[in-house]
């Protein structure tokens, strides 16, 4: 296993290995509940909480869980925290709980969470596992927020329910419908890969220029 520094563990999930935009994990909630900013934030925070809790427990129990039944053990731990999150949401923000519906319970099967347990938390000490969970959770939250903001601003002309463009704005209804999720994710990925390509090209020219300068 490659050794990593604590900073790397924390920062990796936020951008370079962003779970949604780079690893393409957890796409079901990213497509299904990002029609408004409020829903995206609630889903992101709930997932963040579940990820943090399960990484903590899995990392603590990593020497006690038998290898043969580890996946079911992880799922049990995750399901426990999902239940807590669901009850918490229902108590604190009942209308958001209603809007998210079955997708809160479905956090259990978010492959991003199980992936972090299997690939990271079950092999690292508690501190590192928590750092990784924070980084990945924040990365997930950022991706969901980007999608939710894009879809709500275009699809409803508002942000967090506040109208942005006045009463005559013509909403693009499709963006808050299911196809809008796919369109938004596709557009985000196109923008991201264009950005990365441009940066790579820029780095290549810079390197070439430097080499030329050195030769001259």
């Amino acid at each position, binding site marked *: 296993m490659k050794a990593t520094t604590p900073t790397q563990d924390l920062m990796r999930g936020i951008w370079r290995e962003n779970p949604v935009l780079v690893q393409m994990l957890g796409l079901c909630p990213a497509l299904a509940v990002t029609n408004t900013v409020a829903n995206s934030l609630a889903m992101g925070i709930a997932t963040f909480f579940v990820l943090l809790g399960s990484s903590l427990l899995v990392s603590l129990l990593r020497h006690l869980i038998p290898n043969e039944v580890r996946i079911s053990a992880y799922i049990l731990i995750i399901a426990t925290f999902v239940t807590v999150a669901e009850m918490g949401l229902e108590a604190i923000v009942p209308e958001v709980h209603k809007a998210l519906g079955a997708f809160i319970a479905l956090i259990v099967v978010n492959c991003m969470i199980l992936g972090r347990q299997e690939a990271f938390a079950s092999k690292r000490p508690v501190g590192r596992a928590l750092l990784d969970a924070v980084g990945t959770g924040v990365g997930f939250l950022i991706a969901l927020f980007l999608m939710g903001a894009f879809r709500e601003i275009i699809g409803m002309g508002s942000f967090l329910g506040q109208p942005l*463009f006045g009463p*005559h*704005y*013509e909403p*693009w*209804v*499709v*963006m808050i*419908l299911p*196809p809008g999720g796919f*369109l938004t994710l*596709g557009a985000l990925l*196109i923008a991201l890969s264009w950005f990365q390509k441009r940066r790579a090209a820029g780095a290549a020219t810079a390197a070439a220029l430097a080499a030329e300068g050195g030769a001259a």
Partner: protein
Amino acid sequence: MSSGPPLLVTAAPHVKSADSTPRIMWTVVLTLLPVLGVGVYHFGPGALLVVAAAVAGAVLPEHFLGRRRALGDGSAAITGLLLGLTLPPGFPLWMAFLGGAFGISFGKLVFGGLGQNVFNPALVGRAFLQAAFPVAITTWPAPAAEWATLRGDVLATPLMSAAADTVTAATPLGLMKFESTGTAVMDLFLGSTGGCIGETSALLILVCGVFLAAKRYLDWRIPLSMILTTAVISGVLHAIDADYPGALFMVFSGGLVLGAVYMATDMVTSPVTAKGAWIFGAGIGVLVVVIRVWGGLAEGVMYAILLMNSLVPFINRATQPRVFGQRPRPKPQPKPQPQQETTS
């Protein structure tokens, strides 16, 4: 020190013809101009503006994001023209522009440009507009107003909905679906009815279609099987229960003829085999009748064509003709069952 004439080795195809992609595309554009002319004659200069906006929306991304010189082949112009012809005459210009841009970007360029796309880009643009602005795209201004006035919300500010009240008139299909009122078939055939800019005169579109088919620029099997299937199924339904619209009404109302001649026959998104073309057209015909008669929408040609577009690779694979000289593959023989000895 070379001796003798140089030996030129080239790859197939060796048959040369004057037809090239740009030539075919620009011919199709030319045949669409009279159709547009009839639309402008019926709906006034606003119709021309709507189509121009759709063309601009289709051409700009093709120029800036597509391959170099991709504009020259004329396919983006066709996409814009066809999209514009399927829009209501009072459609806001910015929406038409957006539809063209979306159709070309997400219907064509993301797949890799001309020849790579799965779905007809014009219909992708229209499907997007239908999902994004369901009210605007079903607002049909009455054709009876003063010719030169702009109908509907053509000049609405970009991103804003229209402030003006529109005098609306239902389309023949809408009348049939929601009010059970028929329209005289002759009016439909000649085009003096409400509807999209380009879907009013079936006669003119059919003439253009025959011209294109004679030049082999479109596969005549697709429109023929599509129209025949629609006519036969709706005729049978009409015979069973006279409440269903008759065959002629089904064929000449809405965008069926326009779709059959210009959209289903898109060379990129239709099957390449003759048998496949029959299947493809018949599939669209069945879907059109199903959507129009039992679906929630008044018009189903767009979704019918898009759905069948997605099946084209499978149709192509299933209808591959036998290679000349190749024996038909022997059917797998059923294994001989172990005989049960019956003693009685």
